[in-house]
């Protein structure tokens, strides 16, 4: 009897220990994120207190005079990500429609996996491919053609101006589009699968074509989920580092032309951090990181909130 009591007590103790360690690990996940936030604010403080809010609106980035502003990297980040989404969203939704409605059943899984492999390719591979294969191709064929085609069109000729470098904002945006495509595709496909079959069947029953079912039933039904997927893709695009670093050209200026070299927040950090000397220089780079962190945090949090909403509906 005594022995049994001791065993039960021992079990209770080990269970308590295991439970606390597990809970501690879960709390550690929270600590990591708050640690990231605290360390970035701490590291960015010297720059932020020196430049103040003007840091966000200054284009100059001069390591010699130690005058830094985040406007050019923010502009590059936002523009490249926006163009990437403009390209990737229609294609991603198209692939999802293809996979859920058109593709012969035995081919569905292989094609879905192939598209997801695009997400598995490391970012640096996109970079080296973009620099040595894609950029020269654009420089030789696509860019001269676009420049001459839009030469006399008012707005477009300033968007597509300048010598065809190959590298630049548009090239980065195209590569980002390929990189976020799998995220958008796989989430869109998943939310398409949550549409009750009976809804689609009743639409087909009243004589809708496949396109009409997608356009009028499936896409409106899954709107929130698709938005979530798009925001998740945006979060990826904003923070993508190595691929962009290779092909953006690292020029700290705001330029209207999409063919011009530019820079993004992450590319600036990757290119300059190890070479930065002086406290203000390093701190300005960390301040850029803080801006990126805040941007992606808001976007990703919104994306998750949207996806959680559709998950709850699918579960109910």
């Amino acid at each position, binding site marked *: 009897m005594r022995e049994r009591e001791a065993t039960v007590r021992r079990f209770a103790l080990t269970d308590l220990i295991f439970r606390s360690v*597990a809970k501690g690990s879960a709390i550690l996940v929270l600590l990591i994120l708050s640690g990231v936030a605290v360390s*970035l604010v701490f590291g960015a403080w010297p720059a932020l207190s020196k430049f103040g809010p003007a840091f966000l609106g200054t284009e100059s980035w001069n390591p010699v005079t130690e005058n830094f502003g985040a406007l050019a990297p923010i502009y590059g980040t936002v523009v490249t990500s926006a163009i990437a989404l403009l390209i990737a969203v229609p294609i991603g939704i198209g692939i999802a429609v293809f996979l859920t*409605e058109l593709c012969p059943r035995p081919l569905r899984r292989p094609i879905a996996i192939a598209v997801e492999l695009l997400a598995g390719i490391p970012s*640096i591979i996109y970079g080296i491919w973009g620099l040595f294969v894609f950029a020269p191709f654009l420089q030789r064929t696509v860019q001269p053609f676009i420049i001459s085609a839009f030469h006399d069109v008012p707005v477009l000729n300033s968007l597509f101006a300048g010598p065809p470098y190959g590298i630049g904002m548009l090239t980065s945006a195209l590569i980002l589009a390929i990189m976020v495509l799998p995220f958008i595709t796989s989430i869109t496909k998943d939310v398409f699968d949550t549409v009750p079959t009976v809804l689609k069947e009743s639409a087909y029953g009243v004589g809708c074509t496949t396109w009409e079912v997608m356009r009028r039933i499936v896409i409106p039904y899954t709107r929130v989920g698709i938005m979530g997927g798009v925001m998740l893709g945006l979060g990826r695009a904003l*923070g993508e580092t190595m691929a962009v670093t290779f092909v953006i050209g690292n020029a700290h200026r705001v330029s209207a032309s999409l063919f011009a070299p530019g820079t993004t927040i992450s590319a600036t950090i*990757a290119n300059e951090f190890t070479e930065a000397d002086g406290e203000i220089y390093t701190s300005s780079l960390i301040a850029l990181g803080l801006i990126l962190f805040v941007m992606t945090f808001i976007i990703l949090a919104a994306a998750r909130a949207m996806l959680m909403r559709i998950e709850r509906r699918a579960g109910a």
Partner: protein
Amino acid sequence: MSAASSSLYSRRKARNSVMMTLCVVAAGIGLAWLALILGALLWKGLAGLNLAVFTEMTPPPGEAGGLLNAIAGSVAMTVIAVAVGTPVGILAGTYMAEYGRFSKLTVVVRFINDILLSAPSIIIGLFIYELMVRPMGHFSALAGAVALAMLVIPVVVRTTEDMLNLVPNALREAGTAIGAPRWIVIRSVAYRAALSGIVTGVLLAVARISGETAPLLFTALSNQFWSSNLNAPMASLPVTIFQFALSPYEEWQQLAWTGALIITFTVLGLSIFARSLTGRRI
């Protein structure tokens, strides 16, 4: 049927065929990019693939050499990162799925973990720089490994929680009914049932970190030479590719392509193998 309504039908049909064709084209574009990238990698990478790549050190500019120290560095840092990140990830996932399935903490941790999962890895690099490199005063392989571990944790947490949630409650109840305490039920019943899924999560995490460059740039830095000192800068395959690809030397660029080929096929192989383990998509 009147002429007007039949033209409406044909218009709707035509519209349908156009849109469906566009969807097929979209799928074609997706697959074409994959083929183009893998094709270029094979084309340029295979040209430089020989035994020396695996047996010789990274060369000085203008000379032939290999990637041995970079590969070894990558393996070393990946092993440490997995050894640090996996237990934490599995334990956190265990708490969320087993002890705190309905607690507020779980909801918050799941939300934060999902954000960490897609957070830019360069931010993690900055974090570890502030946390380890600056206080220690120098770059080190250890800092690189910890940065990678920060990327392992969210992947493992996510898959562990998902996989444990799939274990039927009847199994746990059976374990509890014969008098086993909770932690023995978790260890001998839940973990066993979810084993292949948890292993998948770890493999996916390895696939994720073995190609990561950004968090290593200013934590582990790089090293031209063989180094087994964890407290000193260490070469890694991705960072070496980054430096060599942007260099003007042809030998270095060739090594970068070959390294890129090695990384990509390792990563893709790992993730295909991981998926085949469970047979379901994660």
